[in-house]
């Protein structure tokens, strides 16, 4: 199928717009430039950096097969909806997809993604944990790009060293109380964030929500201990009530206002809180460490975005070349420097220059040795909804930990069966 370019009518409109806007406004971005694009790259419009500029750079090096950046919504749900609509309609309008790690299984199971060569896109140098998020049923469907795991941010001006266990964290809450601040918060709003919080807590306690074989095992002593930690911390006031409405940004804002002693968040928060200005009162007074667990270091979940190829693409070879370019060490290094997103290459965690700029990379790397992916299942949306519902009900006290874990087990079993 040929991708429809602007017809004579749209050209006429574009010309009219140019005439109205005057020559300066239009020079350099004539609509004709985009006509030549062979491959489209559908990706979020918000990621701290400028994906469009990366595409521009690729196009300069590869004038034979230019890529066009299609900016999608900044919200993950809407990005997914846009991609799903394109894939369901089989239009092939989007060639390369900037995929959230948790969508891989569903998209692959629905037959929307082209399998990728392991040697080419997940070879040595690519972080093994990140590669796992691109796999489904033993095959690689998405090339690892951005990655990351949960970190414990703490105030270095109030603490000498970060807590390594849950008990140490709760003990340290006395310091928060003395300083008239709240102790700990993560993302407990009813959305993907609370799924992450639950999976991290259960995995830290040594359990699992769904095994890699697809068996639901959250109804276990570990499942209860994990959720129990969060619920108890909430009931005891160590986690403020307000955290029930926190997403990533709101947690960060609370921490940088100086309202929190500890915060669970992703690496993106580090440079934002450290950047000079009135917005943050904690510059140079915080650091990040791996998450704590019941008896030692805890287990974070994996976040990240990978690059996948639509089966409906008409220009697969050209698209794969673009994915290869995005995965190159050089591009990943620049992207890390620009956006402070941890990238899926081992070498980038050890680079002294990068480490100086982004000291939290050490904590991320340490956390990456001990991560647990979110449930890998084609029914991820049902699964995360079931987790959110019960976990949130337990956090608000509407259900006991027991009830929540039993309900979650039951609903997850049903979601995985897909009936």
């Amino acid at each position, binding site marked *: 199928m040929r991708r429809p370019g602007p017809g004579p009518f749209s050209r006429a409109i574009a010309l009219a717009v140019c005439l109205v806007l005057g020559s300066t406004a239009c020079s350099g971005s004539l609509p004709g430039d985009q006509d030549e694009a062979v491959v489209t790259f559908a990706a979020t419009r918000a990621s701290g950096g400028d994906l469009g500029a990366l595409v521009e750079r690729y196009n300069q090096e590869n004038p034979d097969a230019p890529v066009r950046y299609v900016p999608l919504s900044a919200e993950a*749900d809407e990005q997914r*909806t846009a991609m*799903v609509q394109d894939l369901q309609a089989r239009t092939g309008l989007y060639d390369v997809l900037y995929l959230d790690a948790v969508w891989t299984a*569903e998209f692959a*199971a*629905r*037959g929307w993604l082209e399998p990728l060569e392991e040697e080419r896109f997940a070879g040595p140098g690519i972080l093994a944990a990140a590669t796992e998020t691109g796999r489904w049923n033993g095959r690689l469907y998405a090339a690892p790009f951005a990655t990351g795991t949960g970190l414990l941010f703490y105030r270095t001006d109030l603490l000498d060293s970060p807590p390594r266990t849950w008990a140490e964290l709760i003990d340290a809450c006395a310091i928060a109380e003395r300083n008239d601040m709240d102790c700990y918060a993560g993302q407990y*709003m*009813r*959305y993907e964030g609370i799924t992450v919080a639950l999976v991290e807590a259960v995995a830290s306690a040594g359990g699992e929500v769904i095994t890699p074989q697809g068996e639901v095992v959250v109804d276990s002593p570990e499942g209860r201990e994990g959720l129990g930690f969060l619920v108890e911390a909430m009931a005891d006031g160590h986690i403020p*009530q*307000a955290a*029930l*409405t926190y997403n990533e940004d*709101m947690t960060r804002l609370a921490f940088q206002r100086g309202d929190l002693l500890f915060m669970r968040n992703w690496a993106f928060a580090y440079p934002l809180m450290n950047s000079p200005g009135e917005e943050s009162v904690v510059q140079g007074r915080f650091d990040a460490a791996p998450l704590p667990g019941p008896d030692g270091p805890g287990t974070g979940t994996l976040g990240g975005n990978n690059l996948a190829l639509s089966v409906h693409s008409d220009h697969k070879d050209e698209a794969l070349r673009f994915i290869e370019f995005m995965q190159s060490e050089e591009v990943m290094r620049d992207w890390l420097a620009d956006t402070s997103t941890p990238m899926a290459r081992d070498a980038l965690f050890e680079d002294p220059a990068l480490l100086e700029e982004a000291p939290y990379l050490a904590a991320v790397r340490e956390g990456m040795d001990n991560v647990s992916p979110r449930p890998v299942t*084609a*029914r991820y*949306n*049902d699964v995360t*909804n079931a987790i959110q519902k019960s976990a*949130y009900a337990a956090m*608000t006290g509407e259900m006991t930990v027991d009830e929540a874990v039993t309900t979650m087990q039951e609903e997850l079993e*049903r979601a995985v069966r*897909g009936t």
Partner: protein
Amino acid sequence: MIGDTERRDERRLATLLLIPTLIALSLVVVYPILSAIARSFFDDPIGRSPTFVGFDNYAQALFGYDREDFWAAVGNTLFFTVVSVAIETLLGLLMALVMHRAFRGRGIVRASVLLPWALPTAVSAVMWGWMLQPDGVVNAVLGTEIVWGGSEWPAKWSIIFAEVWKTAPFVALLILAGLQTIPPHLYEAAALDGASAWRRFTSVTLPLVKPAIVVAVLFRVLDALRMYDLPQILTGGANNTETLSTLVVRTATGELKQGYGGALSTLTFLFVFLCAFLLIRLLGTNVFAGVKEAAR
């Protein structure tokens, strides 16, 4: 007088002129509805094509595994509709009465009252979301520390506040239009007969403005039954604030269950239709009674 053939020709022309509209309507309205209904009799597998399952999807929503979600959504939708439309109608009536008076600055009052209605619902939802944050302006003004999005009743009330704030002006506008059609001589006659202000309100204003109120309530009820933006943006359906529309969207586009989602949207359609039917039956007779009374 127009001859028979001429009339027939005219009628044929009318049909011809209507055809393009009918085609467009059937493409954008009838086809999606029919395809959703057809799809609702199939299941939602991943990796194979859907198979016919009869009324299973309907049974699942009405009394099967998902009945709690469905009936909770029905309950919430009805609750939001009844409470917010009742408050809106009262406030709208008050606002209309104020705007109807001739006083200095009436234009400014009318414009400012209408402002909330002019804002897109999604924008006002985001705005209320900011104001209702734990450290937001609402808590600061009230001197409270309520986590509005954090438990059931605060979350429900915040949706109702936002809904009333936005749509009371719409009700006011419709009622104001009704008020302006009341001939002033009726009030003069009533005043001459010695009727008090309250009596004039209940015996002249209310009966005559009733048709406008009924239209406003009808519009608002049908609108409120489809409420989507406010709960979606303010709470995301947490704390038992899911409405039928958010449930349908979550199922059909979030979980990609077109079969089950189709069943839910068909049920929603039937539910809204039933409500509209009952309301018209109930209020419709009153309108006629009101008109007759006024004519007497």
